[in-house]
């Protein structure tokens, strides 16, 4: 700020007397746009979650969620997120280790990192179609998986397709942070590979691993397109319940049910992501 201001007065004396416009005005378009299309919608969700059908404030929307259908959706979300994030985290960590232990400039590493970047974003309708073509129960080209439409394992396999690459991307820096010297030190002291991992590697990687698992959990929690394209007749998870209540809003006794569900999801995501950021900060200590 001061440097820019002094340059200004020094180089352009003609304008020196004029008061420069307040600099933050330049951020107004951005703030206005994100205000209307990001902050306002989020506010509307939370606002409406506590609003009665006929105006006034109420907790009825929240307590109204205590029905069998909604409970099963939350339990379903929890099951699917836990399974897909734990399995995805373990497999992704193994892949990250395989990638990290090779040549840092090698072709395989570059290939897997580039592919992970693409595949971690590759969700949605297309992913469900790809698995339907590969292992669909009647049409699969590889084999006919009778469990394809089973919840949660059938969909968890599909979710792993984007969870594993995401884990690899997030966890790779942590593994790269393990120094060769630590391993050598362990060996010089007579430690075996197992002892190295048990007493050095695992404790060092634990915060990063847990943090990444939470990130995967949040990722699975918010995924909607893939599971909707997989099976749209039954609402297995919360996003599907939100979709149902939003699309069939007219017939519902409670017009704000969608908002209450969405607010519930915000709470869940905020808790999970806070955990992620805390653990990430703990893990960053070793990654300098």
């Amino acid at each position, binding site marked *: 700020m001061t440097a820019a201001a002094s340059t200004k007065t020094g180089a352009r004396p003609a304008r020196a007397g004029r008061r420069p416009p307040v600099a933050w005005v330049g951020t107004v378009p951005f703030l206005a746009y994100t205000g209307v299309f990001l902050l306002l919608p989020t506010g509307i969700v939370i606002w409406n979650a506590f609003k009665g059908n006929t105006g006034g404030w109420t907790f009825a929307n929240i307590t109204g969620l205590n029905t069998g259908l909604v409970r099963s959706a939350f339990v379903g979300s929890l099951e699917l997120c836990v399974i897909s994030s734990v399995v995805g985290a373990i497999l992704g960590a193994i892949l990250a280790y395989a990638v990290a232990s*090779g040549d840092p400039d090698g072709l395989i590493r570059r290939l897997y990192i580039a592919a992970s970047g693409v595949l971690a974003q590759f969700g949605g309708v297309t992913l469900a179609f790809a698995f339907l073509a590969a292992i669909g129960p009647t049409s699969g080209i590889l084999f006919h998986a009778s469990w394809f439409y089973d919840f949660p394992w059938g969909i968890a396999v599909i979710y792993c397709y984007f969870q594993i690459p995401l884990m690899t991307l997030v966890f790779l820096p942590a593994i790269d942070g393990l120094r060769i010297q630590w391993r050598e030190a362990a060996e010089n002291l007579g430690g075996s590979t197992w002892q190295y991992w048990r007493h050095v590697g695992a404790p060092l990687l634990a915060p990063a691993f847990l943090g990444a698992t939470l990130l995967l959990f949040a990722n699975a929690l918010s995924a909607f397109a893939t599971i909707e394209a997989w099976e749209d007749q039954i609402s297995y998870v919360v996003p599907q319940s*939100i979709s149902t209540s939003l699309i069939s809003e007219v017939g519902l006794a409670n017009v704000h049910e969608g908002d209450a569900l969405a607010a519930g*999801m915000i709470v869940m995501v905020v808790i999970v992501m806070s955990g992620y950021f805390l653990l990430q900060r703990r893990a960053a200590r070793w990654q300098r």
Partner: protein
Amino acid sequence: MAALNQPLADLAADLTGPAAARRPSGLRASQRRRLNAFRYVAFIVFGLFFLLPLFAMVRFSFEGAKPGTWSVAAWTQIVSYPGPPPLLSSIEITLELAAISSAVMLLLVVPTMIWIRLRVQWFSKVMEFICLLPLTIPAIVLVVGLAPIYNKIERYNVSALMLFWAYVILALPYAYRALAAGLAAVDAKTLSEAARGLGARWPTVMFRVIVPNMWQAILNSLLLTVALVLGEFTVAYLLSYVNLQTNLFEISRSSENAGVLFSASAATLLFAFALLLILSYVGRRLRRGRP
């Protein structure tokens, strides 16, 4: 290094270049051998897991009327599938959305970001927070709050192109990270002081001095936005607009194994891969062009 004598390590050196064998790993030869065996098993297993569904989708898109035969019918259907609405029109809409969203995103984020970097540094944390917020707020939640806003928009314009308002928000975190990395690599302060010292006005500083130094980042964010819009389903579906993905979804509801689903999906993917290839190619040339 002793590991070089091992056949597996030779293979490794062939595959990953000689640097792999030279790299000090702190491992004995036998450990190195075991590690390499593990690595190649992992690469093959994961590679198959990632590639087979894609291959299956492409193979399925070439399936003829009888199982096991080949045909390009599904691919010609991409342009002729009647709908309603016709598949081609939804492809058009999606491509237009991609163009509008990336243009709006760049116009919104790039000047703001440079301005903040040069003039209002204290604001950069706020901008980062806002830009990364859509990663935390799932699209399915955002769309619940967007519904009343889109009710108002629909009074003026019912076109599916209006989806761009929301798509810019969805693309914000990815575009922001790409652009922030690009801007961080530019010594914006010195450049702007030099330009200002020579009498340049702020728009000149921005668009003729700083922007040309971050083309790679701009291209990156552009392609990330395009890729996101091509695959977007949630917002369009819940606001009842027709784009490529929602159209494919509707087709899949009426006929589960329609070949056009797989050909159109494969085409979208190939398009996205092509964009990424262009990106890395152009990126490498840009980097080489600079000292």
